[in-house]
């Protein structure tokens, strides 16, 4: 299993994501440069956190048009596994691979803290290593993490089991609609979340709950 982690100018958590992938048994990971459309034969893509292109126009808006993202979009349309974390989630929403948009936190400020997430659905290929209802301790760190979708789209997401993770009761840090922390696309092969599972893979630095998402992707790949 080979993960490819995108590196945009302004990515911050790309090395963390590589380390997290490498915590998965029999998995490896490599960085993919934003200007190179070649995905180098990787089996799954991680679009990492950070401030791609400075987030200067709108979080994720410019990264979405980089050469590598054209390939990632094609990879996703062909059924490839794509995980977007934080800024990566914003990029995937901007790219139209995931529904909705991320807006500034209700509190306007950057928030960095450990939060409790509730697994809504335990399902291949992203949450199969967790149990429905399980609580995961994973940190958030963002300014623009308030998930928004129009009401009819929210209903559709709920109805089609596309919401995989919610902030646990009382733990919503940013005002996200329906406490949504992570959603997948209708086909189920693209998943985005604001919390940082790559920062929850080692007991030394906090929690190992985030590793379950990377390991599930490896299991899904087989």
């Amino acid at each position: 299993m080979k993960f490819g982690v995108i590196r945009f100018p302004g990515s911050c958590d790309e090395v963390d994501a590589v380390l997290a992938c490498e915590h998965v048994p029999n998995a490896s990971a490599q960085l993919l440069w934003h200007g190179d459309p070649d995905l180098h034969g990787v089996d799954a893509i991680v679009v990492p956190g950070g401030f791609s292109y400075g987030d200067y126009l709108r979080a994720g808006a410019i990264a979405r048009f980089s050469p590598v993202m054209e390939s990632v979009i094609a990879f996703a349309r062909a059924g490839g596994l794509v995980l977007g974390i934080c800024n990566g989630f914003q990029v995937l929403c901007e790219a139209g691979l995931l529904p909705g948009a991320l807006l500034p936190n209700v509190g306007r400020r950057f928030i960095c803290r450990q939060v409790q997430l509730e697994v809504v659905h335990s399902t291949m290929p992203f949450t199969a290593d967790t149990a429905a209802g399980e609580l995961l301790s994973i940190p958030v760190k963002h300014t623009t993490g308030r998930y928004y979708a129009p009401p009819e789209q929210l209903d559709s997401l709920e109805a089609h089991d596309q919401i995989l993770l919610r902030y646990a009761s009382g733990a919503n840090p940013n005002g996200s609609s329906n406490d949504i922390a992570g959603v997948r696309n209708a086909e189920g092969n693209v998943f985005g979340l604001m919390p940082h599972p790559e920062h929850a893979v080692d007991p030394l630095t906090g929690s190992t709950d985030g590793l379950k998402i990377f390991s599930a992707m490896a299991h899904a790949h087989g």
Partner: protein
Amino acid sequence: MPTVDQAIALGLTAAEFELIRAQLAPREPNEVELAVFSLMWSEHCAYKHSKKLLRALPTEGPRLALGPGENAGAVTVGDGWVVAFKVESHNHPSAVEPFQGAATGVGGILRDIFAIGARPIAVLDSLRFGEPDSPRTQYLLDHAVGGIGHYGNSIGVPTIGGEVYFEGPYEQNCLVNAMALGLARADALIRSAATGVGNALVLFGASTGRDGIGGASVLASAELGEADADKRPTVQVGDPFAEKKVMECSLELLERGLLVALQDLGAAGLSSSSAEMASKGEVGLDIDVSLVPLREAGMAAWEIMVSESQERMLCVCEPSRLDEVLAVCEKWEVGGTAIGTVTDTRALRVFVGDELVGDMPVPALVDDCPLYDLTPQAPSEPLYAPPVRTLEHDVSDPGITLLALLASPNIASRLPLFQQYDSIVQSRTVRRPEQADAAVLALPGGGAIAISIDGNGRRVACDPYTGTVEAVLECTANLACAGAEPLGLTNCLNFGNPEKPHIAWQLTESIRGLADACRALDVPVVGGNVSLYNESGGGPIYPTPVVGMVGELPDAARAGRSGFARAGDAVGLAGPFRPRLPGSELAKLRGEPLPTELDAIDIAALRAAQEAIRDAVRAGDLASAHDVAEGGFLVAVAESCLAGGLGATLDLGPRDDLEPALFGESPGAGFVVSGSAEALARLGERIDVDVVGTVGGDALDVTSGAVLISASIDELRAAHAALAPLFP
């Protein structure tokens, strides 16, 4: 032709102007030369009022990898790795525009770290403001915190800790000191000395504009006056995205072995960076400013030379590697441009195309600024008014006093600030803010470093010598609680106008204390920064030596924690703790005048106690260790309760000195520890340990004779959250 009046307007004295004229005689200095000299000979660049005193600091040690004089100091941490670190002030820019001032302060200190070839791995900040009920303080705090977060979060370097104090004398002169750390292979460090006649000088990073012209250097050498608003247009604006690219570009250039020397552009911009590089390499440099990429049209040569536009670096490479260097700059979109050449002239020569517009001897710029002796004089009357009283003297209920102290701005939880910073990026953070007395970062080999930054200015104001010794010992106490042994120290000396005898006395005494403490602890000073003239109409700031230290611990998994961890553990007060109320946080809340001296400190005894704590933490004997700092013993116990989410029951026995015992201070000397009874007994074989109670429950209950104190964890937490409303 510039006049003496212009020189004085640029911050020089008439005598200094004459010295510059003599350097260039028989011709007169032109505008380019005067601008460059005025910055190189500013307090900020030349340390002309502090350099002689700083020579007293110990700068040697077995773990030193890079000492004072380079962009940052560094210590070895085993397996061929070194940790680079430095603290620097950005006080005056932050007082003018707190968001950008704090942001560019972080940007500047990060450049110092990667300029020596180390990847930045952490930032800590040391902040001082007036009392938080002042609207100005609220504005400065909110925006400074925002600026720190904006820069550090965006660039992907964790902000892992720091400190903030609120005291009246900082109302008009806030302090924003930023410390950064970097990690490098020992053999990958690079110096800033330009060498190799004929080598190319390459400028890369952001384009050059008029920002900061007459900014940091001039601002940092003059007391703030009413014209502050007029200085706003020259404030530098930080661009963390640009710096991120500059950082990655710098590290890739070094990794590929393409550079001879690297230097960041900070205060005084191209002037200072080029002159320093030439001085260290004992060479000359020719610079053609017409090649410098500009953001604004029509900039004069002197403006280009002194611009403080951020996110720029200067490097030297061999001509045969120039194309490769420029290609790496292109990859990272940071616009590299060859702007000059290394020469054997020992002169900094500035050209516009073929026209020579400035020709200055490098030694004159860097080494020949006159150094001044201070005229210290101890004050015969108090320099500072007593703090404003916020707690009545006749409050005798220690439970009420405890909650008042926990809610005191200098003690309340810093999480409302720290949660605005990314403390975990780079996946090294083993102890996040308020999990331990020091931040802890894992190292590649399984070990870790602990980092703390400290400096209680009010106590230094009481007694500059002892207060500074206390600051060092407070810092080493924090490291000990994490299980770390100190390796090196950096400092930022924030003082008022040193030309005034009482300020000169504070500075002299403080440096004497710093030197004595470092010698007694065998900790070298690896670098530092001095910020003087921190005064305004309201008088001088408290003298504020900020001390940052890096320590090492062998096993990251055994890093200490400050919070109680297990119900049933014994609670002890360890160390040669001699609490005193004068100069304490409680004395401040009661509006008591500052005492004129503090108890002398037996540094050797404190060092021995701290080593015992460190060893017990490393052995895994202690479930928690927390040093008793501001607010005294009971506040420290409450903090351990809050950090662990566990209560405690203590019986102190009947005492007639209950108030000093509970709330008196004795910095660096006392530790609240928890662990098994056997573990505390083992610790007691080395140092005094008074076992006073047990961890457990959801309240802090204290008995002393007939006195009962009881507060639930929720009550403690509510009091401790007093800073949250400052960030609505």
